[in-house]
């Protein structure tokens, strides 16, 4: 065992020295390789962070949201509808929610108007989200007017701005008093937008949803788990599509690596010839070349991954943001929580090291089986 380790140590030593002798070529390879890892790792890290963020956001939402459908479209919940649900075992709380969208032609963006149940907003006042604060230049104490869909102008005083920390969910939010809300949208008395139900036991959610469907055939229960799963699939899918598109880059890299490994310089050929003349076996040369590939691979992987980490978590992933995040006028600005996932690193390793190794196998063998006399004579 000790002899084996000694041998590998010497091989690595020799390989490093031989790599250093051809700096230009190897640095070029390292750069391209690192760049590939960087691009792939950026995509993977960014989508993973978005996924985690979505999970965190949804953790606080109600387990089931019940909507009423009319002709397949979402409709208001009339008075007495919630009572029809009756008592379902396992449901801790059910409450009607009041919210809607408002299109602001000034900034050409949609706001979410909402009358919160758990927060007191005085009549004539609103609390706005951070994105609104930025886009309309609002601050506490300012007044703002919105033209409602009926054409009337409603003026509100900004009482407060929601904290930055909740921006992912509250960017475009406008909170107001229930009566203001009803007056603004001309909401019929007693109607609500949808119903939120909290269920304590996660294993009961499915049963509760089935009972809801039974009691109210015109309703559509939306489960939090389903939303979560959809988000996870959507982000995975976007990541997968990106990777599939980038597979062309992986292929190009494979060809590049093949070329680099195949185009042995006369000097390298001589080197291998001399090594074999002084007693190296073909197996040893392959081992040396293998160490060369491994060292370059690991170094490129490390550099590329670190660069991707910085790109995603310190520079907001400027390169891939538009594709992966989705788009909105009032998009929340948020910082992602750095997170490294084992599966992701393993997958990435498969995507980069595997094609590289596969591409350089044949050239390595060709170099290793050269006859010493042919090279030295030539």
């Amino acid at each position, binding site marked *: 065992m000790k002899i084996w380790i000694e041998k590998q140590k010497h091989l690595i030593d020799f390989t490093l020295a031989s790599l250093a002798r051809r700096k230009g070529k190897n640095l070029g390879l390292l750069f391209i390789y690192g760049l590939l890892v960087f691009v792939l790792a950026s995509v993977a890290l960014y989508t993973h962070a978005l996924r985690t963020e979505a999970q965190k956001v949804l953790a606080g939402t109600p387990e089931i949201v019940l909507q009423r459908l009319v002709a397949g479209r979402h409709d208001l919940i009339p008075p007495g509808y919630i009572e029809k649900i009756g008592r379902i075992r396992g449901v801790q709380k059910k409450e009607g929610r009041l919210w809607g969208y408002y299109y602001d032609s000034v900034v050409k963006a949609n706001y979410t108007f909402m009358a919160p149940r758990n927060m007191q907003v005085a009549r004539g006042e609103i609390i706005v989200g951070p994105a609104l604060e930025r886009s309309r230049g609002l601050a506490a104490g300012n007044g703002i007017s919105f033209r409602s869909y009926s054409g009337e102008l409603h003026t509100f005083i900004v009482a407060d701005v929601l904290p930055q920390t909740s921006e992912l969910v509250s960017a475009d939010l406008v909170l107001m008093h229930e009566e203001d809300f009803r007056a603004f949208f001309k909401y019929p008395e007693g109607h609500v937008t949808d119903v939120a139900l909290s269920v304590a036991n996660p294993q009961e959610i499915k049963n509760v949803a089935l009972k809801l469907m039974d009691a109210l055939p015109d309703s559509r229960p939306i489960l939090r788990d389903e939303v979560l*799963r959809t988000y996870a699939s959507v982000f*995975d899918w976007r990541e*997968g599509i990106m*990777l599939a598109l980038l597979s062309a880059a992986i292929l190009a890299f494979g060809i590049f690596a093949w070329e680099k490994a195949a185009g042995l310089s006369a000097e390298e050929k001589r080197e291998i010839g001399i090594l074999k003349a002084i007693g190296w076996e*073909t197996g040893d040369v392959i081992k040396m070349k293998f160490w060369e590939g491994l060292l370059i691979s690991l170094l490129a992987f490390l550099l590329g991954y670190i660069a991707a980490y910085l790109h995603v978590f310190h520079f907001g992933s400027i390169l891939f943001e538009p594709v992966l995040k989705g788009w909105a006028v009032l998009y929340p600005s948020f910082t992602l929580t750095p997170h490294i996932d*084992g599966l992701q690193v393993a997958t990435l390793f*498969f995507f980069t090291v*595997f094609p590289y190794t*596969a591409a350089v196998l044949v050239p390595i*063998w060709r170099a290793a089986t050269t006859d010493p006399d042919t090279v030295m004579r030539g």
Partner: protein
Amino acid sequence: MIFQPAIIALLLAASLSLLMLIIASPFAMQVIRHWDITSGSERQLKLERLTYLFSTLVAFVCLVQILSALLFVFNADKMSVMFVGAMCAVGALNVNEFGFPALYLQLALFFLATLWLAINHADSQARDYPLVKLKYALLLAAIPLFALSLGLQLQYFLGLKADVITSCCGSLFSSDAPTLASEVSALEPKPALLMFYGSLIVAITLSGWHWRDKGNLSGYASGLGALAAFVASIAGILAFVSLYIYEHPHHHCPFCILKPEYDYQGYWLYLPLFAAAAAGMSAGVLRVFANRPSLAQVVPALTGRLAGIAAISYVLFALIASLMIWQSNLILLD
């Protein structure tokens, strides 16, 4: 659901591996038909030169297969969040009927790959490459298996539908379901415990004996011991080790222990266990070739070392399992 990065990686690895093996197969036929180490003909020289390439290529495929098996399990576990009713890898593998066959084939190929690597190692140590024909015959035999593995994985991954309600490990590994897994799960903890530690002690002793002795008898015995200990260990994990980890008297799942909720403890168990089984069984198989003259020196040294690895890994496995049992708050036996 094919556009999952890990799935793309697995399919990429499987198809590239198959492609490489197919490329190697004409050469394998040539070797089997024309290899003659005593000849100095041009063809023989060419074959000898090419065998470096194809040995490296197949060794690479084997290494990738070992990693794929790991990634497959890892991925199945991660995917479980996407299916209704799935709590761990079992649910994800149960989404369609190809999940578990794909897993079993991955594990079988894992053992085959380690065996091939061991044979390759022994072969390259000897001066006259005595096992070269066997090596390439094995390669040809493995091609259908690799093709089947790719096919199963394709079927499995293409058939993943997020709206399928799958069954959770609780139903598969409960004591009263009519499956082999549940039969094993229903083992009484006490006999299972005795079998688990008994077989481990036997396997460790046999492997240790072969490590020192390097003889024929001890070689075969240690191979059989490693196999028996592997089966008993899996049964033991199902029957009681998992219970201690979950601190729950009825949860027998061998996959939930891989989850972050249980601090990935499963990997600590499975990695030494699979390493030990692969090394021990390879030692047993290699023993068959000990009487070839050119391998008389090589094989005993190699099988001895493999048995050593098996012994150490089984000791490690037993220690880790015992530590998990010792640290648990569950009282299964008085």
